[in-house]
């Protein structure tokens, strides 16, 4: 964009000189009519490369078709700078600024996504085996084809999980509005002793109909927490009906349609900020995505 603009400017120069060579009489006429302007409009930097005559010619070629001297004069009062040129300059500048800002943000996101993929083995995520809230088997293969937003929690959570799940519901709506059905939200319980499929299904229904809950055996849950680098403190042997809390990390993990980790979204993000992060990553995706 910038180079073509410069090229256009360069093309004007020889054109101008060709014109002045064919109209020697008019040039002198203009120079005589307006001797003061000649000095004012001479660009200092060009004097070394261009001859005196060329410089003079540059500012004072009247276009053919002026009916009066006054018209020609008024046309050239502003020299080579007209409001059209100014507008073009400003528009080009504004356009470039917007474009470069957009590119910069896109590159930053691509860098985050790329860095989080790691080399070889993924840093976050990987194989797991769980049971979803309908009692069906669910592995990392089921996450592929769509983006997924993974959240770890437990249903007996006093305040933070429900707040975060409400936020998650807001994000899901905003992503759906922009990109359609491209995001699979997943809730993985860190408390398999109390959170059975039925408990999770009833719990999640209060937040968003798209949320898919997961649970498993104590070992399966411990493994998936390890894969996602989630702190897991649930004791393996709890008595039935025992009252306890579970410590766990509180991130939303965004995974791409190939199952690679993209970015972690912390609690400090608002619904709008988090939705923007997710929507931008989805917009960047060039591979296959399942919209069904």
């Amino acid at each position, binding site marked *: 964009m910038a180079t073509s603009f410069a090229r256009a400017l360069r093309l004007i120069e020889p054109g101008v000189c060709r014109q002045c060579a064919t109209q020697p009489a008019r040039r002198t006429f203009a120079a005589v009519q307006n001797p003061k302007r000649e000095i004012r409009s001479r660009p200092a930097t060009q004097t070394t490369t261009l001859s005196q005559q060329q410089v003079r010619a540059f500012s004072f070629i009247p276009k053919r078709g002026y009916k009066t001297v006054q018209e020609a004069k008024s046309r050239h009062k502003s020299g080579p700078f007209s409001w059209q040129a100014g507008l073009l300059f400003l528009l080009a500048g504004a356009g470039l600024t917007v474009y470069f800002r957009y590119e910069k943000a896109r590159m930053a996101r691509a860098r985050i996504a790329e860095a989080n993929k790691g080399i070889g083995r993924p840093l976050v995520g990987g194989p797991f085996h769980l049971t979803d809230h309908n009692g069906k088997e669910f592995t990392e293969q089921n996450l592929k084809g769509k983006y997924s937003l993974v959240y770890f929690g*437990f*249903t*007996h*959570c*006093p*305040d*933070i*999980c*429900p707040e975060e799940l409400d936020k998650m519901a807001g994000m899901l709506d905003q992503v759906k509005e922009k990109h359609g059905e491209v995001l699979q939200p997943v809730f993985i319980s860190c408390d398999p*002793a*109390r*959170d*059975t*499929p*039925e*408990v999770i299904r*009833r*719990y999640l229904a*209060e937040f968003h109909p798209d949320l898919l809950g997961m649970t498993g055996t104590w070992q399966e849950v411990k493994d998936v927490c390890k894969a996602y680098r989630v*702190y897991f403190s649930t004791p393996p042997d709890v008595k*039935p*009906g025992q*009252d*306890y*809390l579970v*410590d*766990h*990390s*509180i*991130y939303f993990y965004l995974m791409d349609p190939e199952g690679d980790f993209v970015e*972690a979204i*912390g*609690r*400090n*993000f*608002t619904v709008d*900020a988090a939705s923007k992060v997710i929507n931008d990553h989805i917009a960047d995706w060039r591979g296959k995505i399942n919209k069904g």
Partner: protein
Amino acid sequence: MGLFGSSQPSPPQPEPSRDGGYVAPDRSARAVCWEGRDSFFKCLDRNSIIDSVKEDEKAKTVCAPELKKFEEACAASWVTYFKKRRVMEFQRDLTLKKLSAEGATPMDSSTAGGAGSATLSGK
């Protein structure tokens, strides 16, 4: 202590689910619990008690009706958690105040240090 000593307020027992789990409090139950917590904390504020675990006796004396409601509406683990969280939040605010008095400028939490702040908050 005498008033409610004999009849320990018992929180709602978790309802067992058909497949062997325990049903969690739903949205309305959580709202009732949070309400109980808020009115108990307001009472603590009035009596300038921050740590109701350490100052258990005093809290039980001056805020008895509020505490009873709180303990009836929330599971025991939640009660303890909320009491501890109150202390933690008080200390956090105190530290922030101290820091800003020393001239520290807060970081933009939505971009910087996201990783650290999220892990610290627990639960």
